[in-house]
């Protein structure tokens, strides 16, 4: 579903990604962890072209994302993205936030889009909030709406960029719950997170990034029980 081949990415003269390669199969849940500044969010953002790359290639569902503008737009329709800061459209209410993509990008009718939106609001547990503006919602509620907004585009892959890092501790669970349900329905997911409990429970595979390189790429059990890499062991011992 996602094939990342030898990707290099520079910010000025600082190299953030160094020959990164990673494959994600259909239906797989891959969690990316690593110290801050290691390049994990940047890697996620290159998958839907929010960041460009200087070398290598990224293929999402047979589309070479960075080849041209059209490919990039097409890839974005196949990938949903959930941000740390939610980024709900502040001038639109909950229902409009979710219907915007289907109406303007997929050219669905308003009725059709609203039907999809309402069923997704049901799914993320917020059917009563459809007329509320984002500023009236808690962080957890905003993030659940943001997930619904992404799902409304019927993506093949969901990318999560530290979806719970900006949330108060008591609101984290409600968002993780939605993500767990999504994983159990077979959604392909790439998740950058610090929630190791979630990773352990939901991930099929865990990727450890350090200083722009993937230093560990193992199935979840192996990752926690017998990490190969010294750096991974250090990281785990510090936070577990």
């Amino acid at each position, binding site marked *: 579903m996602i094939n990342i081949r030898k990707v290099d990415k520079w910010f000025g003269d600082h190299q953030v990604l160094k020959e990164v390669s990673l494959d994600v199969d259909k239906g797989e849940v891959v969690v990316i962890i690593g110290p801050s500044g290691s390049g994990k969010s940047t890697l996620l953002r290159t998958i839907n072209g929010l960041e460009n790359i200087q070398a290598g290639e990224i293929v999402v569902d047979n589309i070479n994302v960075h080849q041209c503008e059209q490919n990039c737009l097409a890839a974005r329709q196949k990938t949903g993205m959930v*941000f740390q800061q939610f*980024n*709900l459209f*502040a001038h639109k209410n909950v229902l409009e936030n979710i219907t*915007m993509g289907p109406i303007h990008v997929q050219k669905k009718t308003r009725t059709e889009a609203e039907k999809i939106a309402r069923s997704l609001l049901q799914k993320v547990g917020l059917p009563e909030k459809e007329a509320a*503006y984002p500023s009236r919602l808690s962080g957890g509620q905003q993030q659940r709406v*943001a997930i619904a907004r992404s799902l409304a585009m019927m993506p093949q892959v969901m990318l999560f960029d530290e979806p719970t890092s900006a949330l108060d501790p008591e609101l984290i669970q409600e968002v993780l719950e939605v993500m767990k349900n999504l994983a159990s329905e077979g959604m392909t997911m790439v998740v950058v997170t610090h929630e190791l409990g979630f990773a352990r429970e939901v991930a099929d595979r865990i990727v450890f990034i350090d200083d722009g390189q993937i230093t560990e790429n193992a199935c979840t059990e192996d990752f926690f029980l017998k990490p190969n890499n010294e750096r991974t062991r250090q990281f785990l011992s510090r936070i577990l």
Partner: protein
Amino acid sequence: MYKLDFTVLIEFLPAIMDGLRMTMAISALAIIGGTICGVTGALARTSQSRFLRLLSGCYVEWIRNTPLLIQIMFIYFGLGAFLNFPPVLASVVALSFFSGAYITEIIRAGIQAVAKGQREAALSIGMTQRQTLWLVIMPQAIKKILPPLAGQFISLIKDSSLVSTIAVAELSYVGKNIVTTTFRAFEMWLAIALFYFILSFTLSMAVRRLERRLAESD
């Protein structure tokens, strides 16, 4: 001793009204023209192209650092040496370019004040750059733009009095003519000032109502 006599206002009311209508027409056209210049300027100023950014920057700096009176003179007499401009058209063009430079900066600031994440979220659901700008960024920028924009429009109405120097029969020009024939300077200029006040104040009230309506999603 000067004795106040406001009957002159009644006598010349039709002429004053003609002047008022001319001021309103010039201001309205220049508000439209200035907004077009401003939106174009702001899009150029925030575009990917270095050339467009530079061009827009030059426009803004040139206009902001020269007097409006000189710009009006330059367009009417200067360009008038090559093209035959009627004074009303020259006025509208000069005022549009003038206010457009300030509006460029107001809109640019508004666009850049919209959180970066809004743009990324729009792109991530597959919107094109254009859809992102007009469906997500601009509607949010408007709220931040509106108060300084209203201030700019009000300045424009007041600045339009400067086109009396090229004999456009707007409010100030009419006032000056009446004063020269009647010598009722105090009454006339007070009345003219009052008309400008009514125009500007009405506009700022209208904008305040609009702001309240747009604040719905805050």
